[in-house]
């Protein structure tokens, strides 16, 4: 058993819910966005526009909530532990990850054979996740620049002028959607390629036994099979 135990402490229920909202909103936004770009399902067009705007607000507010919650909710700083710290600390550089930027890349590219001992989020993983709220906020802004009821507000009109008009803004909004799509490809791939235990935990809050890691001594200290051996 190579991986660390997947405990609920890594993803408290509140973040399981925000993750669900993100997933649903992103998929709806992508599908309706394509419909708005070109009406290949003609009769869905009006509904698509309404849903697009609604879920745009949903994902933005969800993002704001998630950022605020990071300062109040406790999560595990690493895999394989039930110990918790305030969530925002797991988004800052952690001792468990120090000097590991390049090592993670090497691991991904098969240049390093064994799995790095790290925090809950590996270095490239954490950096890319940190871009997501930034992307969501910028995406929301570009969306508001294109939405007729808000496009003439000075805050949004200034941005439209800056990028060279509504067509440029549309193209930026469109390209950014592909950044989300590409992120989702990579994210889904990496989250599942070594087994679907992380997905079961993230979506269904289902725990999975594995190695136990101590975030204080930054090392693996044992194994927890969640009581499987005692049951049998």
């Amino acid at each position, binding site marked *: *058993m*190579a*991986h660390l*135990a997947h405990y*609920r*402490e890594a993803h*408290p*229920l*509140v973040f399981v819910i925000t993750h669900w909202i993100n997933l649903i909103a992103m998929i709806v936004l992508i599908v309706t966005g394509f419909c708005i*770009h*070109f*009406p290949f399902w*003609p*009769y869905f*067009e*009006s509904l698509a526009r309404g849903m697009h705007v609604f879920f745009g607000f949903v994902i933005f507010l969800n993002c704001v909530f998630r950022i605020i919650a990071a300062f109040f*909710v*406790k999560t595990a700083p690493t895999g394989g*532990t*039930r*110990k*918790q710290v305030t*969530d925002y600390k797991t988004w800052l550089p952690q001792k*468990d990850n*120090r*000097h*590991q930027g390049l090592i993670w890349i090497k691991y991904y590219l*098969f240049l390093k054979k*064994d799995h*790095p*001992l790290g925090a809950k989020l590996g270095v490239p993983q954490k950096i890319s996740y940190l871009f997501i709220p930034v992307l969501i906020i910028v995406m929301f802004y570009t969306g508001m620049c294109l939405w*007729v009821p808000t496009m003439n507000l*000075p805050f949004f009109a200034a941005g439209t*002028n800056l990028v*060279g*008009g*509504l*067509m*440029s803004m*549309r*193209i930026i909004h*469109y390209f950014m959607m*592909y950044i989300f799509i*590409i992120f989702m*490809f*990579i994210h889904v*791939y990496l989250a599942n390629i*070594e*087994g679907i*235990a992380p997905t079961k935990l993230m979506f269904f809050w289902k725990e999975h036994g594995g190695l*136990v890691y*101590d975030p*204080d*001594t*930054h*090392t693996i*200290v*044992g194994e*927890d099979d969640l*009581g499987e051996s005692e049951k049998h």
Partner: protein
Amino acid sequence: MVNEATASEFSGMLEARGVTRRSFMKLCGTIAVAAGLSELAAPRVASALENSVIGATKGNLYPVIWIEGASCTGCTESFAQVETPDPAEVVLELLSLNYSETLSAAAGWSMEEAKEQTIESGNYVLVYEGAVLEGWGGQALRVADKPGTEHLIEAAKNAKTVVALGSCAVNGGWMGAHPNSSDALGVEQFLKKSGIEVPVVNIPGCPANPEWLVSVLVDVIMLDSKQLKLTSDNKPEGIFGQTIHDNCERRGHFENGEFVYKFGSEEEAKGYCLYPLGCRGPQTKSTCGITMWNNRRSWCVQAGSPCIGCCEANPNDPGDNWVEVNTPFYKRHRDLRIGDWMVQPGTIALTLTGLVAAALVVHGFGMKATGRMDGGADFETIRKWDKDHPENSIGTYDLTDEEKAQACKENSGNLTQKERLYDTIGVRPDMKKNDTEGGQE
């Protein structure tokens, strides 16, 4: 006391030109609405026009200078095509068009003299049609022994207001499109660069609608010019404040999801929405669908053509000219330019996404080959960094078995159901307090 209806002097003038009072009042209403006023302001507009016209007989007309820059004269043409006799023409005939390269009967030296005199006496409106060309020292528009740029500076200095007529005058238009070898730009930007402070009103369009010009002239000259509400880029808000899509006669079909995907199709015959054919209505701001063209006979979308966005013009950015921004017209996006290569944004995006997807598939085979798909590779027993720098080691690797067991217990928690419930809100009682309770599920 007047006890019988008498025709005013002005009515007589209208009648002599074959214009009914009713059609004149209709024009006044349109102008009022275009100026951002309520239609109820029509009598005020009428009275302003009337006074001005009566003034005309006394020689008090506002002079207008109409200069052509780098233009196709399309805006003048559009303007001159107004049918006679027509209320719009009445109004404009009654302005004193002191200088117009196309419309004035005079030419040469006497024309230039008339212009100089008008400039000297001041308080006139300058209508500038076409782009300003800074290239070649302004020599491309050399007239009467002076570069075109100098003519504009001279005429703008003393003007009450400058009207930049047509998209070329607003930001270079066609002239500003790639590669813009003549360094074309709009009037407002050029005057700002030349340090001339004069109010500029931008009326984009290719060509600009003559009725928009009438509306602006009436606002500037005859009504209190404060009535003319402008957008942040100095376009009349009543005309350029909303998108064409907002007021489109085919909007109902858009909402119903009834679209034209191909010219010559049944859908086209039914007059469905032209959005899939690249209509720029949703991103182009103007009242084309309300003002319409050629005496309100028709307009592009009514005639079956998707909007090509000819009113798109950012006065401070010749790069944001409507040609560059909207071509190819029938595609939903503009083309992007990479060197000499023109490419649709969708092609770039799909290619990139395809490459990433392919890379992930290849990587997946790598994962399979290295046996990482079942839980990943085994963990390193000691961090690479710690191995190389034992003096700065991050991890502690020399724990005794007891210490390990204790740490394992602390970290694995072994919680009761109740305690798990606390986790739902991310807060739970101190771990150490519970770690001896055991109670695995």
